[in-house]
């Protein structure tokens, strides 16, 4: 079975996000007043797996070993079977 995977990586709650702060200040320069600006990274790929669960376990391991730094990141995994 083939699955489409989307990993969304964001900074843990309370972590300073200088990129988001800069974007918010830049928007203010254009007179757009916004609050709670945040940025996150999305990584997409597809992979084979015997089941959705085993695919998810596989992707979780990827997050722990490379895609995220557990000290500062939270992540969400979205798995969709490819028809």
């Amino acid at each position: 079975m083939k699955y489409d995977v989307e990993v969304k990586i964001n900074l843990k709650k309370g972590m300073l996000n200088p990129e988001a702060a800069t974007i918010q200040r830049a928007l203010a320069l254009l007179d757009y007043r916004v609050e709670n600006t945040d940025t996150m990274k999305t990584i997409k790929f597809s992979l084979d797996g015997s089941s959705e669960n085993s695919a998810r376990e596989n992707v979780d391991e990827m997050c722990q070993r490379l895609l995220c730094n557990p000290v500062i990141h939270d992540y969400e995994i979205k798995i969709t079977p490819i028809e």
Partner: protein
Amino acid sequence: MKVGIIRFPGSNCDRDVFHALELAGTEPDYIWWNQRDLSDFEALVIPGGFSYGDYLRAGAIAAITPVIEGIKESVKENKPVLGICNGAQILAEVGLVPGVFTVNQNAKFICKWTELKVKTVRTPFTSMYKKNEVIKMPIAHAEGRYFTENIEKLHENDQIVLSFESENPNGSTEAITGVCDEEGLVCAVMPHPERASESILGSDDGLKFFKGIVNY
């Protein structure tokens, strides 16, 4: 004394470190990222640069290369390991030192001379300084803001190596810009001792980082 300098695609301070290690009286040699056996070397330095283009996070991809296994072996054999700038980010990503060096508070690349306090002299690299001595070395990084979930542990175990004096340019926790492992043999510093290894460069305060390896 043979000291290995680890090279990744994108390392760019390797030759400066080579020069500083020669000045310190060691016999440096380069090691490529795919070499696993580092048993020929008595100490290792991971120089600065932009390994793998800083893709994903600074140091993240270098942290999973074969040479890291060799570094871990060397650490087990109590050989000193120094990571400078990108080298420090790599050691943090590997988990050989606690915490992480992440995006500067002002989101800018900062390149400037800084005053630093030597917080511990128990590492080989800081063994020739006096505790709390203030030295001058430059920084050059965009991802150097030190963050750790457990600052108390660093204090308890004497793992803070360097901190910024009189300013905190990148917003690091407690202005920390150098940490070591519990044994004090793996040392990760954001400032560049090799760029302060001769007075013609503006300071030779950093040379003792490399001389300390010989002394150890």
